Structure formats: C-alpha cells, structure tokens
C-alpha cells in the first residue's frame, strides 16, 4: 500500500506540475492585459476614434460573414452529413483546408483569385464589383478563414441527429426540404450554434488575410486586430484596451460553445478536435 501510494504521489506531482505550468503559461498573458493598465485607463483609451471605429468594423464584418456562412454552410454541411458519394472524404478535406492554411497565405491566395490582377479580377471588375480595399473584401477574407470552423461542427451535428427521426418525418410524408428545416436543424441546433460561435471567434481574430487582401484603413477595412497592430507602435494603452475587449468577447464566445455542447459527448468540440 505504502509503495503504491508513493508511486501515485510521484506521478501525481508530475501531472500537477505540468498542469500548473500550462495554467500559468496560458493565463498569464491574458491576465497581464488587464493588469498592465487599470480598468479606468482601459475605458478612457477605448474612447479613441480609431479603437471605436475598429470595433464597429469588426462587428459589422463578422456579423455579415457569419450570416453568409450560416446561409450557405448549413445546407452544404447537411449534404456532407447525409449523403455518401465517391470523393466525399476528399471533398471534406478540401473544404477544411483553410483551417490549416496560414492566414497570410489565405490573403495572398485571395488576391491571386479575386484581386484586380487575379484570376477572376477582370470578371469581378467587369461586374462593377470591387473587393480589395473595401469593407466587402474584409467579409470575403473572414468567410474564407472562418467557414471551415462552422462546416466541420455543423456536419458533425447533423451526423449526430438520430436517423429514425428524419426517417419518421419522411414516412409521414414530409419532403426532404421540410425534414431538413423542421427536424434536422432544430435537432442539430446546439451543435450548429457552437459552430457559429467558433466561426465568429475565428473571424473576430482574423488578421493576416484581411491585411493582405483588404488592406487596413480606419473606418473601412481596419478591424480590431488590425487596429491593435497599428496602435501598438503609437498608443500602447489603446492597443491594450482593444485587446481587453477582444479577450472579453472571445471568453463570451467560448462560454457559449461550452454551454451549447454541454453533455453532448460525441460532438463536443468537434470543431476543434483533430480528426
């Protein structure tokens, strides 16, 4: 007994030490944002026009991006979850590729595809649309980097819907569209909500693709992360204040994900877990 107890104690100590190290390392930088400047200083720094406009641009672009992602991503994820066809696995991998592509690469890719000198640049300009240097370009960058987070989670959520429910719905005469809208979406709602929160979080933090593809102009394309970088050199307190806001929003989004996926073992964190 004594020997066994001592062995557990030794290993337990290692485990505890590792966890303590993780905790300190992961929480200290976040805590330091709030410790470096007091709440009063943070609030007054937030009054700067650049910080406020950046928060507005972030709110606007992430909301529109999320709407686009939900509108197109939900049926796309439903197809991936409910159909099996040749090349499905390859297709899923392709759709997930932006998850692992560095943001700067995403920005270069978007420019090469949709920029004025890009593959589709002529066609886009011919249609009288412009994406580079305008708010719409930020939305394009955000949709590109954030949608895989939603697609993954939504696909997992639809796959977890009890097939007897949808089968029953079909047996009772409901068409597939009606079954999708009335049965599958409500049943998968918590998972879809968690996916939306993850995608929103990713969009909110987007930096590299936006900078390279859309540029950075106050009130137009300068999102909160871009403003933090711009302010870092000139107004460190304002950069801290904006960072604090983003930490608070990110924490709220993470809490939402946790709440929505609580007690849903198989789908919990499906958007984050490696496959």
């Amino acid at each position, binding site marked *: 007994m004594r020997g066994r107890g001592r062995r557990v104690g*030794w290993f337990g100590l290692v485990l505890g030490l590792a966890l303590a190290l993780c905790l300190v390392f992961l929480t200290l930088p976040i805590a330091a944002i709030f410790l470096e400047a007091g709440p009063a200083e943070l609030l007054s720094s937030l009054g700067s026009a650049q910080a406020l406009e950046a928060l507005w641009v972030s709110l606007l672009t992430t909301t529109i991006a999320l709407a686009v992602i939900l509108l197109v991503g939900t049926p796309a994820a439903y197809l991936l979850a409910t159909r099996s066809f040749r090349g499905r696995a390859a297709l899923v991998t392709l759709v997930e590729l932006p998850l692992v592509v560095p943001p700067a690469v995403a920005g270069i890719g978007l420019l090469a595809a949709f*920029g004025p*000198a890009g593959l589709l640049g002529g066609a886009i300009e011919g249609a009288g649309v412009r994406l580079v240097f305008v708010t719409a370009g930020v939305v394009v960058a955000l949709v590109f980097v954030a949608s895989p987070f939603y697609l993954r989670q939504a696909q997992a959520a639809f796959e977890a819907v009890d097939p007897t429910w949808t089968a029953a719905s079909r047996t009772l005469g409901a068409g597939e569209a009606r079954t999708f809208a009335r049965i599958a979406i409500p049943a998968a709602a918590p998972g879809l909500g968690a996916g939306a929160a993850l995608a929103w979080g990713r969009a909110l933090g987007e930096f590299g693709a936006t900078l390279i593809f*859309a*540029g*950075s*102009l106050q009130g137009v394309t300068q999102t909160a992360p871009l403003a933090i970088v711009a302010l870092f*050199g*000139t107004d*460190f307190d304002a950069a801290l204040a904006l960072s604090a806001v983003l930490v608070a929003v990110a924490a709220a989004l993470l809490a939402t994900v946790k709440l929505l996926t609580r007690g849903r073992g198989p789908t919990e964190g499906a958007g984050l877990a490696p496959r």
Partner: protein
Amino acid sequence: MGNYVVACFAALALAGCGSGGDAAPLTVSAAASLTDAFEAYGKALPGEQRFSFGGSDALAAQIRQGAEPDVYAAANTAYPEQLAAAGLVEEPVVFARNQLVIAAPPGSEIGSLADLAAPGLDLVVCAAGVPCGDYTRELLDRLPAAERQAILANVRSEEADVKGVVGKIAEGAADAGFVYSSDAAAAAGRVEAVALPARLEPTVAYGAAVVAGAAEPAAAEEFVAGLLDGPGAEALAAAGFLPPP
C-alpha cells in the same frame, strides 16, 4: 525527482538558445526599408546577426516594453532620440538618408503628384506613426489643401511598414503609393519610381543606436560604426541610400 524536473527545464532553456557558436549572434531591430542593405551588410561582417525588420514605431514600442536587441535602427531620427531620452538606447547616430518617391506598377500612367489626385485612384500609404507614413503626411501638408484632400481621399489602405505598400503595388492591388527610393530600387521590375519635386521632398534621415544593456555591446558598437564608414556604408550606398547629412 525534483532535481530531474529542474534538469529538464534547464535543458529546455538551453535548447532555446540555439545550436550555440563561439559568440552569440548580434540582434538588430531595423526599419523594414533597411532589409536589403542590412542583409548585405551582415554578410560582410564576421559574426552572425539576427535581424528583426518592421515598422520603426513597432520596433521602438517593443524596446519600450522591455525587448533588448543589441542595435536599433530607425527610418527617422525621432524614435532613436526618444528612446535615448528615456535611457533605453545609447546616443544615436544619423547614418543615412533616403528619398520619398511615388511608386507605381511598371507602365503606369502616373507621372507626377498631381496625377494622384485623380478621383477613383487607389493609393496605399504607410500609417501615421510609421516613419514613411509621417514623411508622406509631411509631404502632403506642403500641397495646396484641395490637392492634399483629393490625394488623401484616394488612400485605400494604411500599412504598418513600407514593405506593405510595395507589396500592394507590386501585387497589382493598388495604383500607387509613397515609398523610399531604395524600396522602389529593391523591387525594380515590379514597381516604378516617380521622383517628387525637390521643394516638396521631406528630409528622410535614418538613426541608429546601441540598445542600453545590449548583450553584445562591443559587436553592437562595431555594427553601428560600420554604418558610417566601412562595409555598412557601402551596402547602404549599393542599396540606393544616400550618405548622412
């Protein structure tokens, strides 16, 4: 076992120091516009260097936040002087000058400042606070108000350093921007430089200083001295910089 863990961390810490040579590499925080010149200069030096290129303002902010490179070289003289006044760097020296120019894609029809005021043009500039951005605003402030406002209305993006401006133009995303003549020369073939009227040109001077508490003070001093006279000055001249005033 406590000793074992300590040994583990010591090993980790050492691993972070790199493969280890005779002397630690010299760390140099330098303005993005110095990229080519300093990399060429580094090859002419016996020791090893680690360069961190970026906006002079961001690099100064890192030093104010406690970063300790051995050398700080900025695209203006104000930032090194401010850091010296705060005791963070030694007495700075002015080691080069540069010229602000208009950069445009090859074959562009832009031939003068007045062309930049044409409605609908897409301009990219450095952000305020970044030296190239401050020089750009200094230049624009010398223009008649109407022309200045017309040009500013065409600004589509404010970049964190001059290489961001060059990239946007070279990539075909923007029609023109303000960069240093050395950057335009470095990107020859991808961008074209249009000179500015001499009476409007801002004075662009570069300051460098040894950082207080530098890990390699002797090598740092040697590096800064070589910028004034020696391989550094030669590399700067070859990259299109002008000698200090």
